[in-house]
């Protein structure tokens, strides 16, 4: 199958990159890691810097910039990502703005529909949204039960889509929410609504939601083989609902670092990737799986398997397990092309900054990727992909 025109996103987690010296003493940098460790002045400087990096991505021609939501953690300073997206709207011109996203069951659904519609209208139809269930950690931070989260998620999603697609006012009388006048102003610019994705770790319930609505799906932090299987599952399952999932609806979450040589790329990048896996995602099994958040079968699978994500670091292991491309433009372009082909995807969602990576490396990575990798992969660009 000929590769479609590939699409490239620049994703940013916007971490708080000033962990205290004794941070290794803490089992978790999520949920209960005290916010006394957050210095607003350092935070201000980071926001300035991170926003500038995403604005640069727009100038360099990335197809989209991506932000997301996490609470109570150094991992992300985007507890309310719509504020970040709103700050990006007037500073960017062409790039799509992806909020991937707010768990719809953590917010009043009409309010989320409104905020996304405002972003879509302000940006002249550049918004894309994803609906995650949220990590287990988000449920310790929010007054929402992990045990009824999936039911509430489904109902919230239905309300948001109804708010966007049906002429208001409409009504909704459900298990969790009642709307006597569902009639949010404004409506989104894009019709019937901005492109939507489901983000998840592959539970069958979540795949089914994407299949039912014909939404895109992005698996996060699942091993490559599993991500491949999930894309296949979704394509098959979507047919049962009369939907055909297109390659651009299946973004591949990748970690990317490009430099002049393989050695230099590793030397410049690995300390930060190691910090990411060892320090920024470090949390406890309890916070990962609050009561009722996982099925008992899923909990047992996770309790039995060594957790590759949260706390350890072995680059060879991790780069085989996940989509991590580190090296020269030729090598990175080759890997991305193979992954896209194998995953049946035309959509690379690249994380271009991790952990405590300094600004200069981020700018270098963004620039080299835009000027040396993307042109190697565009259909209309000269084919320079190295042989495998």
């Amino acid at each position, binding site marked *: 199958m000929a590769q479609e025109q590939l699409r490239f996103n620049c994703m940013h987690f916007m971490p708080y990159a000033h962990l205290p010296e004794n941070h290794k003493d803490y089992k978790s940098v999520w949920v209960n890691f005290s916010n006394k460790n957050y210095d607003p002045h350092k935070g201000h400087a980071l926001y300035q810097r991170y926003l500038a990096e995403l604005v640069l991505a727009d100038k360099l021609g990335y197809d989209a910039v991506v932000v997301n939501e996490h609470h109570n953690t150094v991992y992300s300073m985007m507890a309310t990502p719509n504020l970040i997206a709103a700050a990006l709207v007037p500073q960017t011109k062409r790039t799509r703005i992806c909020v991937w996203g707010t768990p719809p069951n953590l917010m009043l659904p009409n309010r989320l529909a409104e905020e996304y519609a405002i972003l879509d209208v302000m940006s002249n139809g550049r918004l894309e949204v994803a609906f995650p269930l949220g990590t287990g950690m988000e449920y310790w931070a929010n007054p929402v*039960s992990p045990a009824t989260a999936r039911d509430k998620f489904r109902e919230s999603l239905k309300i948001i889509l109804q708010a966007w697609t049906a002429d208001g006012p409409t009504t909704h009388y459900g298990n969790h929410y009642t709307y006597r006048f569902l009639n949010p102003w404004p409506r989104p610019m894009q019709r019937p609504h901005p492109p939507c994705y489901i983000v998840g770790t592959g539970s069958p319930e979540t795949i089914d939601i994407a299949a039912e609505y014909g939404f895109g799906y992005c698996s996060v932090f699942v091993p490559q083989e599993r991500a491949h299987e999930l894309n296949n599952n979704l394509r098959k399952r979507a047919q049962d609902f009369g939907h055909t999932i297109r390659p651009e609806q299946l973004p591949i979450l990748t970690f990317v670092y490009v430099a002049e040589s393989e050695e230099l790329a590793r030397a410049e990048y690995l300390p930060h990737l190691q910090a990411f896996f060892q320090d920024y995602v470090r949390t406890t099994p309890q916070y990962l799986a*609050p009561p*009722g*958040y996982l099925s*008992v079968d899923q*909990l*047992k699978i996770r309790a039995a398997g060594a957790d590759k994500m949260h706390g350890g670091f072995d680059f060879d292991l991790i780069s085989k397990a996940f989509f991590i491309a580190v090296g020269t433009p030729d090598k990175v372009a080759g890997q991305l092309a193979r992954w896209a082909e194998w995953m049946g995807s035309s959509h690379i969602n690249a994380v271009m900054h991790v952990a405590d990576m300094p600004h200069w490396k981020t700018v270098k990575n963004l620039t080299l990727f835009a000027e040396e990798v993307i042109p190697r992969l565009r259909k209309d660009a000269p084919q320079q992909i190295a042989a495998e």
Partner: protein
Amino acid sequence: MFKREEFVVDGVKTVMHSAGSGEPVVFFHGAGTIDGFDFAAPWTDRFRVIAPYHPGFGESGDDPSFTDLHDYVMHYLELFDLLKLDTFNLVGLSLGGYLAAKFASEHGHRVKKLALIGPAGIIDPQHPMRDVLVIPGDQIPGLLTSNFEVIKKRLPEKPDLDFIGDRYRESGTVARLLWEHPADPKFMRYLHRLKMPVLIVWGEEDKLIPVQQAATWRKLVPHADIRTYPRAGHLVHLEQPDAAAAIAKFLS
């Protein structure tokens, strides 16, 4: 000695263990099931002991639509109809004590005598109950008793995935009931409707629900006989056989 029976109660698989003959005594277990029912074995020479697993716990099935303690009250009305149990004695432990008191405040004519063991349900800002949903699972056994040996023999010797899964399932059931609303302010309001004889036993070293909450029970249910036991924690009926014997004597 206990006989296992399985029922379908309004679509939910419900497993019940029972033994003995005589006046029926229904036992409501708490938010976990590792403590078992064997403490009631000595009661079976005088009573028919009926120990069901609540939906979402132990050997009973799940019903994810149960999101409120009142769903359990309705479940037991159905089960007792199936068993043709018109009136009976009711004993409840911890969350099961909360449920037993709630059941008895609504359906007092069916409960002859009510015994509560370290009951939950009281809102006491000075002596709050520990939030069991926030305690890591591996730390909970250590909080159940004063003498750890009492509970240790009921735990697996090596890490056991099935055991971990069973506990996770039960904590998920508790989360459906209590995550967003750990306490119901209306519960205390209706406790004055408990007109039957009431006994409350409490371990003086209860690390989950402070024994000081007994004072609130005394205020709300003035006729209750309240007994506390030294060198005993939350599972006072396991740690102090005197406490279990006192319940049997009260019910006689």
